[in-house]
């Protein structure tokens, strides 16, 4: 008996010691996130979590900064021709891949040819269809010859889905398993859904980093992430759930950074079936919803009400849009005019945990629409089941969080043009939307483009095929010793290149 007790005490002490022992290595940033990458091929992976990781390892030709301006990455300069039909890049002569090879025009050409090759199944291919041929006249010039003027092409090239990879890796077919990029970090080790280790890329053209590398842990439960930050086991973390994020500041020694994002929360309506075919019913739904109230109740007010365009350069003041202030009398009147005075029943689908607030949003919308006699049944489902139905357009209404882009055309052509791949998911199109989108694509004057897309915003909120609600934030939490991180609206972690770790 006595021996057992001594043993227990000894092992308890040992465990306490092990718990308290902090690992050395002050120069590696210990990070955590709750969702892990799903693969390593930058042209094929579209999940946020994968993109977050790949942005640290690969580089596109250009990047967007915190103000969403296009800035140099592999390319040091670029220029559209007068007619807007050729786009010429000069490459940074210092750009190197992590294996020491210089990034050459042939790598750029091979990368875009791979993206355009249908056999690759590159996610972003549809953004680059205007590219007809690619010339590489010398060791630092790449010329894209286009079939038509295509202004959004440049911002589309800032995505990691248009990353420049070594032509040799394409040849060898190793992109899914090995990473040789020109980005700030090198991925040394990846244990899916568990951890990844990165070290600073000494060949990176962007200069010396203040940190040696990154140790990333995948902690699926965000409450556990918060606990790890508290105990200093982790110094920097991404947080998805606003409910967890709002708890961060109440901990001494922890800082929360909020960055407005481009992705938007929206209530998608199916304007092709039943009551919602009626313009007035859709407008009534828009008038019945108190967007700020949904935001306050479901996201603790963590975000701001938005129109369709979420990028600051194109965003319009929401108060100028149709029925952005709740007006129940007008909503009821509209329902009456549409012969739906008694309302109707419909189902709204939402994905469990994606976003974390989806269920709450659906419930608030349900109660608001009940005010005008619309009886909503909420269907919660696993994300992939939801996506499957969403892609088929198989829903009455859907609570969605859709990704944003820095350019309105790239963001919305899939939904709001007649030949958009996802027009059947948008469930609505009219000539005006189609015309405005295509005008915005070819217009080269920025001021005029802004007018075109403002018109688009105004019109689409009036015909109300969807009810745009608000944008949320992306959150990073860090301990006080981490300094210098700069977030961007695209959610990129590229700002880690400026991070320093103090004591």
């Amino acid at each position: 008996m006595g021996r057992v007790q001594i043993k227990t005490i000894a092992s308890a002490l040992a465990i306490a010691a092990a718990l308290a022992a902090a690992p050395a290595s002050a120069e590696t940033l210990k990070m955590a996130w709750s969702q892990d990458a799903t693969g390593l091929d930058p042209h094929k992976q579209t999940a946020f979590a994968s993109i977050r990781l790949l942005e640290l390892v690969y580089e596109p030709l250009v990047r967007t900064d915190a103000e969403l301006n296009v800035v140099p990455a592999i390319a040091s300069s670029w220029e559209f021709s007068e007619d807007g039909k050729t786009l010429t890049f000069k490459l940074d002569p210092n750009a190197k891949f992590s294996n020491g090879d210089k990034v050459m025009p042939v790598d750029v050409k091979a990368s875009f040819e791979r993206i355009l090759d249908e056999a690759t199944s590159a996610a972003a291919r549809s953004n680059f269809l205007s590219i007809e041929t690619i010339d590489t006249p010398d060791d630092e010039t790449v010329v894209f010859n286009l079939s038509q003027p295509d202004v959004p092409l440049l911002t589309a090239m800032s995505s990691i889905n248009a990353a420049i990879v070594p032509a040799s890796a394409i040849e060898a077919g190793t992109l899914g398993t090995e990473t040789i990029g020109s980005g700030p970090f090198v991925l040394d080790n990846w244990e899916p859904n568990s951890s990844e280790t990165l070290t600073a890329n000494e060949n990176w053209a962007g200069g010396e980093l203040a940190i040696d590398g990154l140790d990333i842990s995948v902690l699926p439960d965000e409450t556990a992430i918060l606990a790890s930050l508290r105990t200093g086991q982790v110094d920097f973390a991404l947080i998805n759930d606003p409910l967890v994020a709002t708890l961060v500041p109440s901990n001494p020694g922890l800082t929360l950074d909020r960055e407005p994002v481009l992705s938007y929360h929206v209530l998608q309506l199916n304007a092709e079936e039943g009551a919602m075919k009626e313009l007035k019913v859709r407008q009534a739904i828009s008038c019945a919803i108190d967007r700020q109230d949904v935001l306050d109740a479901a996201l603790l007010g963590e975000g701001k009400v938005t129109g369709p365009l979420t990028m600051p350069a194109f965003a319009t003041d929401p108060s100028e849009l149709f029925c952005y202030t709740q007006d129940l009398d007008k909503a009821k009147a509209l329902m009456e005019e549409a012969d739906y005075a008694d309302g109707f029943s419909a189902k709204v689908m939402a994905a469990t945990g994606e976003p974390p607030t989806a269920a709450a949003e659906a419930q608030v919308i349900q109660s608001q629409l009940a005010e005008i006699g619309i009886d909503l049944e909420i269907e919660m489902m696993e994300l992939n089941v939801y996506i499957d139905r969403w892609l088929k357009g198989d829903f009455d209404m859907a609570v969605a969080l859709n990704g944003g882009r820095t350019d309105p055309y790239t963001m919305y052509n899939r939904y709001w043009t007649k030949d958009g791949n996802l027009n059947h998911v948008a469930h609505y199109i009219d000539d005006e939307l189609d015309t405005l989108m295509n005008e915005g694509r070819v217009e080269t004057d920025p001021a005029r483009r802004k007018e075109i897309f403002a018109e688009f915003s105004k019109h689409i909120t009036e015909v109300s095929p969807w009810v745009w609600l608000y944008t949320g934030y992306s959150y990073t939490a860090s301990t006080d010793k981490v300094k210098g991180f700069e977030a961007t609206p695209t959610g990129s972690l590229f700002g880690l290149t400026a991070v320093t770790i103090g004591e």
Partner: protein
Amino acid sequence: MNYLTRRLVTFPLVMLGVSVLVFISIRLVPGDAITAMLGTEAGLLTPAQRAALETYFGMDQSWFGQYWHWLGGALHGDLGISVTYGKPVLDVILRVFPLTLELALLSMIVALAIGLPAGIYAATHAEKPSDLIVRVVAMIGQSTPSFVVALLAIYALSVWFGVLPAMGTFTPLFEDPLKNLAQMILPALTLGFAFAAAVTRISRSAMLDILSDDYVRTARAKGVPQRKVIWHHALPNALIPVVTVSGVEFGYLLGGAVIVEQVFALPGLGRTVLDAILQRDYALVQGSVLFIALNFMIVNLLVDLAYAALDPRIRLGAQ
């Protein structure tokens, strides 16, 4: 054919049934590997792009063709390649299984170390206040969800003591025993808590039953000391239902404790299966479920053999 051989003969049949069921059910779920990888962007694929991806994921053949292909591999010990990990399924399973096995064993040790003495104590003090306390605690233990216990433990540790076990990665026991135990003790206690409650309740009622049996009364009448009656005469028989419960519970734990692994961020079998299902990593789902089924059958067989060892009256396979 003796009992053991007959039991072993059923193994392949059960495995075949399980593999067919899993194969079909994972494919019946809406959403496939392509939507899992691309999300809504899957809607932007051209037909040719989709066809290329289907070939890549091996989804271009008929279900029967896919199953046949998989079965052919499985019979040679090749469970296919996991698309998420880019590694053979068996490698992935064998990498995460040690964690799950250790967690299951630790939980069982915790459960038996707490549950058995508590149950016997309650049985021998039946209907006294102390018995009531044990029963109430066991009731609470069984009815508290494990994620609540886990989160409370994490919260208490991080807020009051400013410490936490390392999360996200796993240190194998033989690499660094102390670090490993520091990582595993909390999840093991969390799992062991509910498990112990079940053991307490079963051992208490089994013990109470047996203490009123004839042979125990006889032993008492002959003047055998109380302690000896309990530990010598009654306990071996009282253990039978405890072995059953523990065996079944242990079998479940070998399938991975999904919730506890999620909260403590331990990359064990449970989370691997869950992530594989969410990412529609068909080969990994099939391989891991098969592996779990095999473990379950082995544990069940061991429980039956332990029966016979504990109770000579049980003759396995007696007609």
